[in-house]
């Protein structure tokens, strides 16, 4: 009888585990489209770990896949550190304080008393039991993107020219927070950690700026987490990344999660099987595509990246799937991935 593999088996296989019968398939998405069916509110998901995990389980029932991401709410984590409300932090913490250097007064918390981190750790723990077949991926934020969240995207870019010393000091702070949160998540029962750096792609900054401002702090954070334990670390960057792909591979992560605008073919040529590539199904196809278009694009992605990258490939949405995407389209994507992704 043919062996039945779980989602955990499929994802473990690309990170050096036993080879299974197909490539792994998954998505990055919010719970909003399935909350009604789960019978829980967005507020309950934000405040009750068991409800969060119930949303994960409902998502898995509706859209079965090999890995599910816990989108760690960094806004809430930083809000706790700064003693701000959710809404205040959304409007850029350092502007709320009226002093861009106010972060210097914020002390790094004791992870054992960092309530919001404890909340996400509890979710990781509960999800491991509730979804034993699925790889649990926790996604936290990088030093650069956390700095942009605190300061505002435009302000931080201008600061690199006007006040580089401030940018270095802010990045030192967010690097320490990033290390603390990443390690806290890796201590729990997750299958992989994804570091999200949504604002580090060349849709937002230049390659020169990436090398000067993003890489040194990101590398420090990645190295710290690699020494913390051996769980796979994935790096997700939104938007276009072709000009910095070699830099991304050189960072030493286990996997790179690519967004739709980036070239899968180019990444395969650079990776040469060195890193697992995840991605990069275009978001708009989930919203606008029909079944045949979705299947064609899935097939094309697998042809480009699976065998040519030594089967170190996870078929995944390029970024978070828009909430208005029809669920049947997401299922078409997952089904096509399972079908075309079978090893010959």
């Amino acid at each position: 009888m043919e062996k039945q593999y779980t989602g955990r088996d499929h994802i473990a296989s690309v990170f050096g585990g036993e080879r299974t019968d197909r490539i792994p398939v998954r998505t990055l998405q919010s719970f909003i489209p399935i909350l009604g069916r789960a019978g829980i509110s967005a507020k309950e998901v934000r405040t009750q770990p068991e409800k969060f995990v119930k949303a994960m389980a409902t998502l898995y029932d509706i859209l079965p896949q090999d890995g599910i991401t816990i989108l760690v709410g960094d806004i809430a984590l930083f809000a706790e550190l700064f003693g701000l409300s959710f809404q205040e932090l959304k409007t850029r913490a350092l502007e709320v304080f009226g002093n861009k250097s106010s972060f210097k007064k914020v002390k790094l918390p004791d992870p054992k008393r960092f309530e919001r981190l404890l909340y996400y750790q509890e979710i990781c723990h509960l999800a491991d039991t509730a979804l034993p077949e699925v790889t649990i991926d926790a996604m936290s934020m990088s030093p650069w993107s956390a700095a942009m969240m605190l300061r505002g995207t435009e302000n931080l870019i201008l600061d690199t020219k006007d006040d580089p010393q401030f940018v270095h000091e802010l990045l030192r702070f967010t690097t320490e927070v990033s290390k603390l949160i990443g390690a806290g998540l890796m201590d729990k029962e997750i299958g992989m950690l994804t570091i999200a750096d949504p604002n580090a792609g060349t849709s937002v900054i230049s390659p020169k700026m990436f090398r000067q401002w993003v890489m040194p702090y990101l590398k420090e954070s990645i190295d710290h987490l690699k020494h913390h334990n051996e769980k796979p670390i994935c790096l997700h960057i939104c938007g276009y990344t072709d000009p910095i792909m070699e830099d991304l591979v050189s960072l030493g992560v286990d996997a790179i999660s690519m967004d739709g605008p980036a070239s899968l073919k180019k990444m395969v040529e650079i990776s040469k099987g060195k890193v697992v590539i995840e991605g990069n199904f275009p978001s708009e196809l989930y919203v606008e595509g029909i079944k045949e278009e979705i299947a064609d694009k899935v097939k094309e992605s697998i042809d480009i990246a699976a065998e040519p990258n030594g089967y170190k490939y996870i078929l995944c949405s390029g970024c978070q799937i828009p909430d208005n995407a029809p669920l049947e389209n997401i299922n078409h994507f997952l089904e096509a991935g399972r079908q075309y992704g079978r090893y010959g």
Partner: protein
Amino acid sequence: MDELKKIAENLIEGEVDQVKELIQAALDKGIEVEKILNEGLIAGMTVIGEQFKKEEIYLPEVLFAARAMKGGMEILEPLLVSAGAEPKGKIILGTVKGDVHDIGKNLVAIILKGTGFEVIDLGVDIPAEKFIDAAKESGARLIGMSALLGTTMQNMQTTIEALEAAGLKGQIKTMIGGAIVTQSYADKIGADGYAPDAGSAVDKAKELLGLS
């Protein structure tokens, strides 16, 4: 003219203080305001737009240049107004509800202003009714909407539907942009125009307002 060339060069380098100083010096020398705008600031932004399209520069360089342009416009705008220069048209701009990303939208606003449009920038996280109320109150015939996230782009459609429900679709046109947005998405939701970058947004605005 050397002065105007230097203004353009410093704008390209994003040197806001130098641009302001050079503009003041050019005005003191008696160079016409519109000449400074067209052959200094807009000439510099045109180069920036071309370099950006060719991927020779990236968003930060555009941002530095746009800030220099904004600095220059702070000096020139009151002079243009007192000289009685009529704006080309009025445009409502904003990032849609649920989305707080504003770099792209701000760039579009600066470049539209620099090219002679009156821009009413509503800011970020703007619900459909606010876009429509602003257009009705100001008499603007174009609404520009921005979104960066796949989770918020549907609010562009909400605005267009609300415009239709108010019987204003066609009278008030819509254009959309943002990293996640595509021409096919614009077609799908019934937007009148789509612009992939700030430079193209100006051309599209002119086209939609019948000015090109």
